[in-house]
């Protein structure tokens, strides 16, 4: 604030807040490039350093009617995410064929898993970390059957521009699709967590299928032949995760907040133990919390968004507002990459970048770029992008800490 008043010529005696509104670009520029004489650090109008993110907080599991939920606040942007799981019967899938379900069952790996199906979460991590076949199958199921349904709503009065009750705005639609494609490309949710299996009982004495105990199934009632020793398992249903994000307050950078809330909510999600009940021909669930299992997510991709602020675009204004601009121009920075832009800053730059990174081995391994996106301009070069990845990697550590705490 102090630097703003110092830069504004005395003839223009406006309070900083009004100056910020009338000349947003010059205001921000004055903050970022203080006169060398003043010995002030280059700082954004909101008091942050260019690569500094806003204070972030997350809180999970506070909503009653969800399988998993989270509230994430990044500065003044707040997103609420609720995950609701519903059941998709394979009978309701038009393109579903029995062979499809049995191929899934026939792979040795899965057969192995079946035996351990009481604790799929623990086992999965080691077992199918590498398997390409499983990956393809994951994709076919999660993506092909639309098992993840993220929707983001901005019609919550979060900002003046969005009329409530109107169909989703272009921004909301694009954010929903970004979340969806990121969910798919990171393969965050394992299809195995979403499958509900049925193991036809065999009449042998070694029938110790774990879910049969709970089912209390009358063995006599089921006469379906069991010539072989072990019937192939079949998929009877899937869990469909409805991931709904409500942006409650919008002050720039909705994607980071929305993605963080989705991530936190998915980490919080607990699915009830479910099995196919032959008598009722439907999937039944246990409401026992000890039998419910969490999702074993693949990694922890963290999104960091950036916005580019250019000084050149303001050349005309600078001549008026900062008379000694001509001398300053040489050697002074002409553009800044601002991390986690707020609403004010987003309005001043066209060029955006978004980097999603993950780290192997719980943060100790190497940094993996999951997604990198840049559009709206051409000032950011490869060196800059490299730097952004470094910043994002740092952000990953922060976000991991925050998400682990919630």
């Amino acid at each position, binding site marked *: 604030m102090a630097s703003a008043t110092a830069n504004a010529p005395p003839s223009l005696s406006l309070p900083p807040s009004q100056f910020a509104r009338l000349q947003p670009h010059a205001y921000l520029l004055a903050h970022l490039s203080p006169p060398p004489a003043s010995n002030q650090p280059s700082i954004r109008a909101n008091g942050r350093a260019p690569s500094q993110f806003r204070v972030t907080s997350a809180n999970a599991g506070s909503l009653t009617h969800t399988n998993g939920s989270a509230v994430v606040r990044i500065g003044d942007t707040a997103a609420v995410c609720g995950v609701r799981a519903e059941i998709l019967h394979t009978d309701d899938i038009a393109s579903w064929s029995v062979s499809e379900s049995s191929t899934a069952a026939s792979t040795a790996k899965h057969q192995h898993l079946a035996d351990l199906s009481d604790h799929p979460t623990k086992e999965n991590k080691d077992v199918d970390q590498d398997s390409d076949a499983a990956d393809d199958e994951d994709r076919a199921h999660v993506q092909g059957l639309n098992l993840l349904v993220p929707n983001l709503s901005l019609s919550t009065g979060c900002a003046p521009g969005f009329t409530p009750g109107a169909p989703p705005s272009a921004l909301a639609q694009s954010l929903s699709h970004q979340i969806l494609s990121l969910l798919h490309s990171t393969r965050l949710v394992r299809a195995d967590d979403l499958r509900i299996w049925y193991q036809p009982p065999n009449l042998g004495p070694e029938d110790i299928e774990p879910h049969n105990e709970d089912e209390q199934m009358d063995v006599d*009632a089921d006469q379906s032949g069991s010539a072989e020793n072990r019937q192939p398992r079949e998929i009877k249903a899937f869990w469909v995760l409805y991931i709904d994000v409500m942006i409650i307050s919008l002050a720039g950078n909705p994607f980071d907040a929305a993605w963080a809330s989705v991530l936190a909510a998915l980490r919080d999600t607990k699915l009830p133990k479910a099995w196919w009940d032959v*008598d*009722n*021909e*439907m999937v039944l669930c246990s409401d026992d919390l000890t039998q419910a299992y969490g999702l074993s997510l693949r990694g922890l991709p963290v999104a960091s968004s950036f916005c580019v602020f250019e000084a050149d675009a303001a050349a005309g204004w600078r001549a008026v507002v900062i008379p000694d601009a001509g001398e300053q121009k040489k050697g002074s920075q002409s553009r800044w990459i601002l991390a986690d832009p707020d609403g004010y800053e987003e309005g001043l730059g066209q060029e955006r970048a978004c980097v999603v990174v993950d780290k192997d081995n719980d943060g100790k391994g190497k940094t993996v770029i999951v997604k990198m996106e840049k559009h709206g301009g051409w000032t950011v070069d490869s060196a800059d992008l490299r730097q952004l990845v470094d910043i994002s990697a740092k952000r990953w550590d922060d976000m991991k800490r925050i998400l682990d705490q919630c």
Partner: protein
Amino acid sequence: MAAQRQASSASQTPHLSPAELSYLYTSLSLPKTPIRPDGRSTTQFRPLTAESNILPGTNGSARIGFADGTQAVVGVKAEVEKTTVAADTLDARGLFQQQESPAAAAGDREAQEGLGSAAVSGHGSWVQMSIEIPGFRDDDALPVFLSEMLRESLVGAVSGSGGEDMAGGLKGRLVINKRWHWRLYIDVLLLSQPLSYPLPLLSLTTHLALLSTKLPKLKSQGEEDPLFDDDWAAAQYLYPRSAPGSTAPVTTSQQVRPPVTLLVISVADNVIFDPTREEIAVADAVLAISVARDGGHDGLKLLSIRTIDPPSRLTQPGVPNSENVNMLANATSVDDSAAGGATAVNLATGDEEVSGVWRPRRGGAKRSVLARMVKTVLRKGGVGEEVLEGLEGVEVE
């Protein structure tokens, strides 16, 4: 957009000038004997023509027309439907009813008993209501609000002891057996643009249509799949009626009748029924009060009250002489200081009432006012009973 905005308010505000509004308000607020523009008394309804059973393709129907030309037609259709009570996410009991699962058949008594309650007492969603008002989309605020209001009192009307037939009210009446029930479609059509708040018209017409509604006589018994008598003459009224011969008032007053929703306004100390559009425009408070007669209870039973946004809040204020620029110019020429003083006072107090100058109504209604409005409806021999009797008198057949 404009229509949608005004929709929630108690109908389009008529274009009356502040002076006209003020005149109307003053005459309606006269103590004891308010003067209504059409000369009616406070409890008098506008003349209307009514007929029932006008649509042969329905189970029951009615048409009511007001003298001003607005008409409403209501058709009631009933369909037999399988009972599935899985309306609730967690309620799996309906599944038993639906598919007679081996577990239930095997004699899981506990489950069998548990599932009974919903099937016996019926479900509110079995009554479906749609209201069509020309000039409004069916998801506009007005039709939605009206249909929720009418449906709420209809399915809410649970009678304590209205005889064997009507135990459980309308919802209970729709139950055929544990596995089957009637679904009632009530379609309400307003035939012209509403000239006043259409609620009383729609409610009366719905009432009449339901009174004339007949359901075919059930031939099957118990838990069998339902089979009906195709003789229309043998069909039974949805709301049982007394035998044609006996018109003793005692029997009618003990019968369960569908609810009616009355529109009541208060102007100053007066309570006025069946207001016209102009009268609503100056009302202090507007209430929609649903009442019904149920068997065991002597007199009328209150089913629901809803406030309706009085359009008087949206009217244009009049300008008192003391604030009027033209008048001020005159006043200044006469006496500078006096006029200046008067304006200052008025600016300071802001909402001071100046008699004869219209001010849009503000605030809500006192509890005493609301209580009086309800009392006038419910009173023995009061307006509510009068309306119900009047509707009973409409020839059905």
